[in-house]
């Protein structure tokens, strides 16, 4: 139990970082109605670009910006494969994801894992987040540098930007494209352009998340993004199941996704620590959780469709 409690701040921190990716997944899966599998590749791309640039002395913010742009480029490729080449969205994402494995390896100098030089105190000090900052003041790190604070602020700023963007003409055209492409085209919206923009935006967020996780872990691994899409979906679904009744506003819906990611990580940590489970079972566990959560609403509609007003029906049958 103490193991779990002491792991909580770290789990919440990681959840917040993955939450940034999950918000990216929300843009494609929920707003555009596309299951974009590019994510598994572009997440690692973000970390790869960051680790190489930062290690060579580039400013942390510039390295993050480069990671963002690299992710956006990956999204652009998927978008063009889908709209210009007419490849179904899921397959387009898989193709990009597969290709990105080689690209990511190339970025990381053909090494499967590259570490940040965090043993040097001045290098560590330049990072936005790190596993080490979780320990807080008692280990000599200021409380405001705690990942929950830093990534929390980061997420708040991102949500604010997205809230503004989806309120603009361009953002509204994206929402319309996901909601009803026929209507969107009839209202003069270039639905292909909207899809490409959405994929660019989404994968930019995903790569940013990858860059943050790379800092947190102090290294980037070629397999870091494997299954990321499923974690993203888990966060989106958990957020929706728990908060869809309360959070109506768009910004709050994005917040719900971020909270969903935190809950996911806390639950996973609980299972690992309390159940003493080998960490390699994590992927199976995640897949099961997402499968169950996707099944429930379907079965609910199929087998348990309830009458509009059961009480009234009762009265009617007596009459």
């Amino acid at each position, binding site marked *: 139990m103490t193991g779990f409690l002491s792991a909580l701040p770290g789990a919440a921190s990681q959840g917040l970082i993955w939450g940034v990716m999950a918000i990216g997944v929300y843009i494609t899966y929920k707003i555009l109605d596309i299951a974009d599998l590019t994510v598994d590749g572009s997440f690692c791309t973000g970390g790869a670009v960051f680790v190489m640039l930062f290690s060579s002395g580039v400013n942390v913010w510039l390295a993050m910006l480069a990671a963002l742009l690299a992710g956006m480029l990956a999204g652009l490729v998927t978008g063009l494969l889908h709209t210009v080449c007419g490849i179904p969205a899921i397959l387009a994402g898989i193709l990009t994801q597969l290709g990105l494995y080689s690209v990511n390896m190339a970025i990381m100098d053909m090494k499967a894992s590259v570490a940040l030089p965090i043993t040097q105190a001045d290098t560590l000090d330049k990072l936005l987040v790190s596993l080490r900052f979780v320990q807080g003041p008692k280990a000599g790190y200021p409380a405001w540098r705690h990942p929950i604070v830093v990534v929390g602020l980061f997420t708040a700023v991102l949500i604010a930007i997205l809230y503004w963007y989806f309120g603009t003409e361009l953002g509204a*055209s994206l929402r319309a494209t996901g909601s009803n492409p026929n209507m969107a085209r*009839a209202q003069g919206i270039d639905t292909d352009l909207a899809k490409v923009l959405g994929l660019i935006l989404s994968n930019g967020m995903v790569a940013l998340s990858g860059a943050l996780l790379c800092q947190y872990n102090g290294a980037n691994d070629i397999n870091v993004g494997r299954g990321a899409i499923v974690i993203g979906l888990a966060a989106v679904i958990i957020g929706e199941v728990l908060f869809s009744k309360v959070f109506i506003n768009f910004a709050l819906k994005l917040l719900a996704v971020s909270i969903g990611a935190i809950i996911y990580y806390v639950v996973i940590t609980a299972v690992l620590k309390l159940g003493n489970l080998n960490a390699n079972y994590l992927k199976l566990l995640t897949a099961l959780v997402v499968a169950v959560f996707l099944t429930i609403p379907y079965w609910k509609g199929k087998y348990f469709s309830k009458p509009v007003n059961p009480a009234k029906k009762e009265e009617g049958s007596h009459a």
Partner: protein
Amino acid sequence: MLDVQNIRKTFNPGTVNEKAALRGVSLTLNDGDFVTVIGGNGAGKSTLLNAVAGVWPVDSGTISIGGVDVTRLPEHKRAKYIGRVFQDPMMGTAATMQIEENMALAARRGQARTLRPGITRDERDHYREMLKILDLGLEDRLTSKVGLLSGGQRQALTLLMAALRKPDLLLLDEHTAALDPKTAAKVLDATERIVQKDHLTTLMITHNMKDAIVHGNRLIMMYEGRIALDISGEDKKKLTVEDLLARFGQATGSDEADDKLLLG
């Protein structure tokens, strides 16, 4: 306003499902014309409307609207000139967006979408006024999701949105067919008022011969991918259903008109 010259369209060419849907249709609409289109199933009514709207490219022929050749323009670019209402009430609006957001999308038809606000305060007041025309109580529900509205309400909203930018051409594809008779009459009534108010050039498909006769200043009847009848002016005003069936029989040499038209 609309000039269609000899357009042809064959679906699934070279397969067993080959269907020549449009076999050389030419049609010229003058400014302010309100043309009703009738014809049996598979006569090519909807295909004609979709060809004009640019849902897919035609095989041959040209289409121009207000003097602009739009034959090669994709659907979303033609939307600048065209307002549309579909047969399916679900098709013309975005269900997960608010009423006012849907209207704001329509208000920007034909303009570049930028990073300006998707909707402004002034627009809201304007939309509230416009919704009052429909007399459906929607003016008090600006921020309701469109998915919560009934089919008739959605269709009326789509109509308002189609006319919002005063399009060069209004295309109505059996837009009352999926509604109950009472709602259908209400939507048709709103259609008449909106078309009259802005003198919109309109092409309206209907399966109801009476509606086709009562509304508009011109009536065309399609048969097997061609225009079989074109009645306008005084001729149209005096028209009756029996007249129409007789003239259709004469024009096509077919006596299947009765069933096909009445059932279609």
